[in-house]
């Protein structure tokens, strides 16, 4: 028995030994006993310091304390469409953390779990600010847990307050005679002040605005704000109101903690307080939050709920406070350390009487109406009572689904009442205003397909908001012309199936208001289409700025000048205000003094090329003298001369220049100092001009066609580059250099400086012949980041050369900064359109032009040169003859989609072989009509994926040879499609 026991114990010990051995000598982590944790996949919308705190501190702390769960966070857009797409593939995450105003749409798609049913939900809810739950509830459930508290407070520049306390009322604020920064004078910006002045939007149940928004207190609140209009400083578009407060230009801005946690603005020099009130109203800030949701499809709901509870708890919420947000957890909010979050006290105080940011249960569907009402009242266009009365009825109409009342001062133009030109036509939909909308605005050369409104009935000169109600399945640009000048107006898809689903886009336009204004609408993008329901004009202000076709507004900075005050000022060098100077500032104090380096230094000069530059210095002075200019450490002298004859040191600009060498690699430095004692001058700005033996053609100096326009960038050559070269039929959007001033016949290297977020092909035409030139992306966000591509081209050098540029690829876009031409050799091999050429550039980016060879007497008809009817359009391919072929010959009754060649110049009558070069993925029948008579011409597939792979079919046809012959091409088979590259006629016999 003892032996057996011993044997058993030994066995156990040996088994343990083996296990321990295995653990000890295994190399794999799993063999070491590390467990595989359950993964909870989290998508969130945080960025900046919020992202860092969420991923690196909150999630890390949870993962550390949970041995069996690993949270895997990643920043995603969390857009409904993205989540729906991933759901369809069973690849959705488990948790979304996103702005609260998206919850409704997700609930509508049944994507979210009702968290109210979870164990512990009541405890979580009880621990958080109750008001936040007003935002979480949808359709009787609770589908999200608040993660933070975003509450509006008034943030002041402490110095601008001058030691005084933050004003408690708007009246006290106005008395300080400083400004409040706002993004716009609309409801979105002014709502916190409106509510604190006694205004209201809706009843507590969000069922009606009538009696609230148009109530006596609301009218008084808006009147109060309108009376203080001068108090508000509207910031430039794209800038944060808070930046003006930080800079001391404005006293106050209303904001929540996002400005600090995401935008990265520091709180130093700022103080926060409750938003000031007016009219004796109680303070009541606007509250918002981000929320945590669990996807209904999650297979790890239990673990996901554990994490949600953790996020709502004191530990996570305490960490969250570090990035500047106020926790949603009450205890954590009360415990926030003021050193971590100096504005927490103000946030907490603002919680008293706070109201939700979402003004209606339709997730702010009515904010557009409120914005316009507020703008009209604030700009003095209409009385507050009138705009609020109308707006309240509009909101109720939105909520009830009834017809929305219009402001009688707005001008509503039904598209079907405009003059319909070309192929535009009426379509019907019960959902359209007036039951009708207009389609067929497809772009064509000369814009024949358009809607025109002449003598627009507006009676005030000024700026109007032009609202365009449209429908489309695509993104594009509604080509709007206001008094003949095109204004871009981008649109996004409304329905992928071309059903009538309306949306409204707005742009600001200047109108004369004298009864002679005109508006025109046609598709701007050749490959995108939109229908238009109506347009509405809403008067915004009396500001009127005449539109100018194709010209950018001049900006002094656009000439590439560098202000001296932007340099590093050493010693006694100082920037002082100076009327008349560029930027209203000059630099003085660079006179020599013992042991004191008084100078201005510029590091990392924006010179882009290695070589000689002309340095031009603009200055003002009452005496002659010499500047010491130190170029990359090498001292050079630059004499200056008296400019101010009065001797009063008034500003009188003069310019001196010298030649200097620069490396052009971004590391060049320039230093400026006065060489001799007792001589003084005021330095204003300087320019650097590259001295180039090559010919530089600035894109902005070319002739502009179509929608081409200049854009500005300090990084662009001469401060400008050209955009809008988007391909359209017959290339109306292009720049052209005529009579290019090169004086030698031969081969030139053409260097094209461009910018793009895409890869594509710059369509270059050299003396009328297209030369492909591929480019790659330079910046994904369309910022001006230049790059240069090169091709070799033959030029005649007799002063008659012509260069044209437009986007070659219809779906790729590039801007052009400049074109540089460098003489390479006297070899001149002219390019031939559609023909083989022996020309070889020696660069990868250049390609042969393939196409049809043509014997004398043959008649080559490039499809793109025919008359294109209906929806036929050109497509590009480097393999196509002439770089183009024609698609869209789809059969329709009456054959409206076709290519027609009239008056073919056949020299004699008789039989001709008609070769048709086509491409298709199908078999079918090209419908050929010869002098009106159909001739069958079968074709077979050339490529199953619709790539441009050409093939040629031939038939014999009879021509009269009197110059009146006509050929037509359209798809014969309704369900088969072919593109046509070219047709060739070869005489056979008579």
């Amino acid at each position, binding site marked *: 028995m*003892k032996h057996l026991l*011993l044997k058993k*114990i*030994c066995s156990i*010990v040996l088994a*343990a*030994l083996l296990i*321990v051995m295995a653990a*000890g*000598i295994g190399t*794999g*982590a799993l063999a*070491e006993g*590390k467990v*595989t944790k359950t*993964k909870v*996949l989290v998508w969130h919308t945080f960025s900046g310091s919020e992202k860092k705190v969420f991923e690196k501190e909150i999630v890390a702390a949870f993962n550390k304390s949970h041995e069996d769960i*690993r949270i*895997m*966070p*990643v*920043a*995603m857009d969390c857009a409904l469409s993205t989540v729906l797409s*991933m759901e369809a*593939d*069973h*690849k959705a995450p488990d948790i979304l953390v996103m702005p609260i105003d998206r919850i409704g749409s997700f609930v509508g798609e049944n994507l979210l779990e009702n968290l109210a049913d979870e164990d512990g939900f009541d405890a979580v809810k009880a621990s958080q600010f109750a008001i936040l739950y007003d935002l979480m509830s949808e359709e009787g459930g609770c589908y999200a847990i608040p993660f933070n508290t975003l509450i509006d407070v008034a943030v002041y520049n402490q110095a601008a307050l001058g030691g005084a306390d933050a004003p408690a009322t708007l009246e006290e604020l106005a008395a300080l005679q400083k400004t409040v920064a706002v993004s716009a004078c609309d409801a979105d910006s002014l709502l916190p002040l409106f509510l604190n002045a006694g205004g209201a939007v809706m009843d507590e149940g969000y069922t009606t605005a009538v009696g609230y928004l148009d109530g006596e207190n609301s009218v008084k609140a808006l009147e109060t704000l309108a009376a203080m209009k001068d108090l508000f400083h509207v910031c430039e578009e794209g800038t944060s109101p808070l930046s003006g407060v930080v800079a001391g230009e404005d006293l106050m801005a209303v904001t929540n903690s996002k400005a600090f946690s995401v935008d990265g603005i520091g709180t130093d020099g700022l103080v926060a307080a409750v938003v000031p009130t007016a009219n004796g109203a109680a303070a009541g800030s606007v509250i918002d939050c981000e929320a945590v949701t669990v996807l209904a499809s999650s297979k790890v709901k239990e673990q996901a709920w554990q994490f949600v509870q953790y996020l709502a708890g004191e530990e996570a919420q305490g960490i969250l406070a570090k990035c500047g947000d106020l926790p949603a957890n009450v205890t954590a909010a009360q415990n926030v350390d003021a050193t971590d979050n100096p504005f927490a006290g103000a946030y907490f105080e603002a919680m008293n009487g706070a109201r939700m940011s979402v003004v209606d249960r339709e997730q702010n569907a009515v904010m557009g109406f409120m914005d316009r009402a507020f703008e009209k009242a604030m700009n003095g266009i209409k009385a507050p009572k009138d705009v609020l009365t109308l707006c309240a009825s509009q909101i109720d109409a939105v909520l009830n689904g009834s017809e929305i009342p219009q402001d009688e001062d707005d001008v509503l133009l039904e598209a079907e009442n405009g003059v319909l030109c070309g192929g535009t036509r009426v379509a019907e939909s019960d959902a359209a205003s007036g039951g009708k909308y207009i389609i067929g605005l497809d772009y064509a050369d000369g814009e024949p397909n358009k809607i025109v409104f002449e003598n627009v009935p507006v009676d005030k000169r000024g700026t109007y908001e032009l609202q365009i109600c449209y429908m489309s399945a695509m993104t594009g640009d509604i080509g709007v012309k206001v008094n003949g000048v095109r204004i871009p107006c981008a649109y996004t898809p409304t329905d992928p199936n071309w059903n009538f689903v309306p949306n409204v886009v707005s742009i600001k336009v200047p109108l004369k208001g004298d009864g002679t204004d005109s508006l025109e609408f046609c598709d701007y993008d050749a490959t995108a289409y939109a229908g238009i329901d109506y347009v509405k004009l809403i008067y915004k202000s009396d500001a009127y700025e005449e539109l100018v076709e194709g010209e950018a507004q001049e900006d002094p900075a656009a000439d590439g000048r560098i202000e001296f005050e932007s340099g590093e000022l050493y010693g006694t060098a100082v920037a002082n205000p100076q009327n008349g100077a560029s930027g209203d500032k000059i630099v003085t104090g660079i006179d020599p003094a013992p042991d004191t380096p008084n100078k201005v230094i510029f590091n990392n000069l924006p010179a882009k090329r290695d070589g000689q530059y002309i340095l031009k210095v603009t200055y003002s002075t009452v005496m002659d003298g010499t500047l010491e200019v130190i170029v990359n450490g090498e001292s050079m002298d630059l004499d200056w001369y008296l400019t101010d004859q009065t001797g009063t040191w008034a500003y009188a600009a003069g310019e001196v220049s010298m030649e200097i060498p620069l490396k052009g690699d971004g590391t060049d430095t320039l230093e400026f100092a006065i060489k001799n004692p007792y001589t003084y001058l005021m330095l204003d700005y300087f320019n650097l001009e590259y001295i180039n033996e090559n010919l530089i053609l600035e894109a902005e100096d070319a002739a502009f066609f179509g929608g081409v326009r200049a854009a500005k960038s300090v990084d662009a050559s001469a401060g400008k580059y050209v955009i809008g070269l988007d391909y359209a039929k017959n290339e109306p959007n292009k720049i052209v250099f005529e009579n290019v001033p090169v004086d030698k016949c031969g081969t030139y290297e053409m260097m094209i400086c461009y910018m793009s*977020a*895409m890869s594509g092909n710059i369509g270059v035409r050299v003396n009328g012949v297209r030369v492909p030139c*591929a480019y*790659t*992306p330079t*910046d*994904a*966000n369309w*910022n001006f980041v230049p790059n240069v591509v090169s091709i070799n081209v033959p030029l005649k050098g007799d002063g008659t050369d012509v260069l044209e540029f437009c986007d070659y690829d219809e779906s790729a876009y590039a801007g052009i900064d400049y074109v540089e031409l460098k003489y390479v050799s006297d070899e001149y091999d002219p390019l031939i359109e559609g023909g083989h050429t022996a020309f070889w550039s020696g660069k*990868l980016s250049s390609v*042969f032009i*393939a196409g049809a060879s043509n014997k004398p007497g043959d008649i080559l008809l490039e499809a793109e040169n025919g008359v294109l009817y209906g929806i036929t359009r050109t497509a590009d391919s*480097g*393999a196509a003859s002439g770089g183009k072929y024609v698609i869209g010959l789809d059969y329709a009754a009456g054959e409206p989609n076709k290519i027609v060649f009239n008056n073919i110049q056949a020299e004699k009558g008789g039989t001709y072989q008609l070769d048709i070069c086509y491409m298709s993925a*199908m*078999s*079918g*029948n090209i419908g050929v009509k010869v002098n009106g008579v159909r001739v*069958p011409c*079968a074709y*077979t*597939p050339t*490529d*199953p994926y619709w*790539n*441009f*792979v*050409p*093939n*040629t079919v031939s038939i014999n046809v009879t021509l009269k040879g009197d110059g009146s012959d006509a050929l037509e091409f359209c798809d*014969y*088979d309704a369900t*088969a499609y072919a593109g046509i590259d070219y047709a060739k006629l070869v005489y056979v016999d008579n």
Partner: protein
Amino acid sequence: MFKKVVSVAVAAALLMAMMGCCAGIAEQDPHDIEGTVTIAVPAWNITDLQVQIGDFLDAYPYIDVEIDPFGSEGAQTYLTAQAQTNSMPDVLVGDWDSLPFSVSQGWVMPLDEFLANDEEAEYVPASLLADYTYLGKVYALPMDLQFQCVAINLDLLDELNLDQPDYDWTVDEYTDLMKAATTSKTSGTERLWGFDSYMIPALNAEAGYNAYNPETKSFDFTNQWSAAFKLFKDLRAIPGLEAWMMRNSNVDGATSDYTRKFGESDADDMDMAFKSGKVLSESFMLTSDASWMRYMNFEWEMYPLPQVEEVGSRQCMHANHGFMLKGAECPEAAYELLKWLTTGAEGNVKKMEMYSEKDGDDVTTGYLWYFPSTLHPDVVEAFGDNPHIQGGIQYMYEHMGTAVRSDLYKIVPGFEQINNECIESIINDARDDRREAAAVAAEMDEKANKRLALAWLEFEERLMANED
């Protein structure tokens, strides 16, 4: 005695345990590496990658990973934008763009030092690493493999009383099967378009897809295309064998032989006949097409391309790649993560477990398996254990070492443009009998090789300049 035995056994156990632990530390187990890695991953597959990276973090407890998704614009555009803002990731995986572009920008870190110290690298087929080797340095690791394959309708095979072929079937067996399946009501295959391009490597030991030879960095249609082209033409010459050709009978707009034989359910669908169940095979398919094949209402299986005895299996393969960026904060940690997601044994075993556990009814994308890019024994075993994998798929995986790349645009500089303009636009002249194949081959070789030589030269000059 009893006490003594127990004491000795316990002491021995403790000693062994200590030795084991010490050995791990002394050998600097990679799992103990500390560091932070930022990784860019394709957003389309983000949740799978979240799980895979989560598994990595389980195994590497001292490494922290930050995930940065990039969208459908691709790695080239993403990295261009990141470079502008000096915010490059440490690692990027799932790239389907041109690797030469990223390498030529000077962004990509050579991996040779890491591979030299990586015992598992020997299980990555040398040919796969060679695809990413420029001027003697390896710049990326393969992942997400796919193969060109022949899908066979097993129900129709039964119906026609034909035997299911072996996975190492010969070209003759393939040809015989296609012929046997061609009847008045059925056809052998849907399309043969491009079949010759894919069959070049199967019939020639020296050439790859489209007669590209990675050794000489040139095309050789003149000498390597003829056998594959003859096979293609011989098959196409058999009336009714290729369903697609029957579409060409439509000369006057009336119903074609194709629709008369296979119906008019959706003639715009390039695979209508095969989907109708009346065609035995689809010879123009990637294994990833399992995503839609799973909706077929017949039993099917994916077969490797047929072979000839003297050459053996030479499949046409696609692959995405992952690489490390220069400036990675902790290169050792970055390499471990890169390896986990590409060629490493542990990562692939865990990934295969994830795929094995998926419920076939719960996955609409059809990705119930994937091809690992390593033949490490543990991975081979895990692959074999996946219940969703069929024999043909298994065969392709086991023979990836002799496969050639047919997605050459990802690894050969300038390939896409050259292939489009100098090959694809010309080759149909021969396929459709408009020109002699020999003349077409000569023209393609001359045009494409001139362009290709220049592209390689320009790329390698940039690479050398970057390395200086």
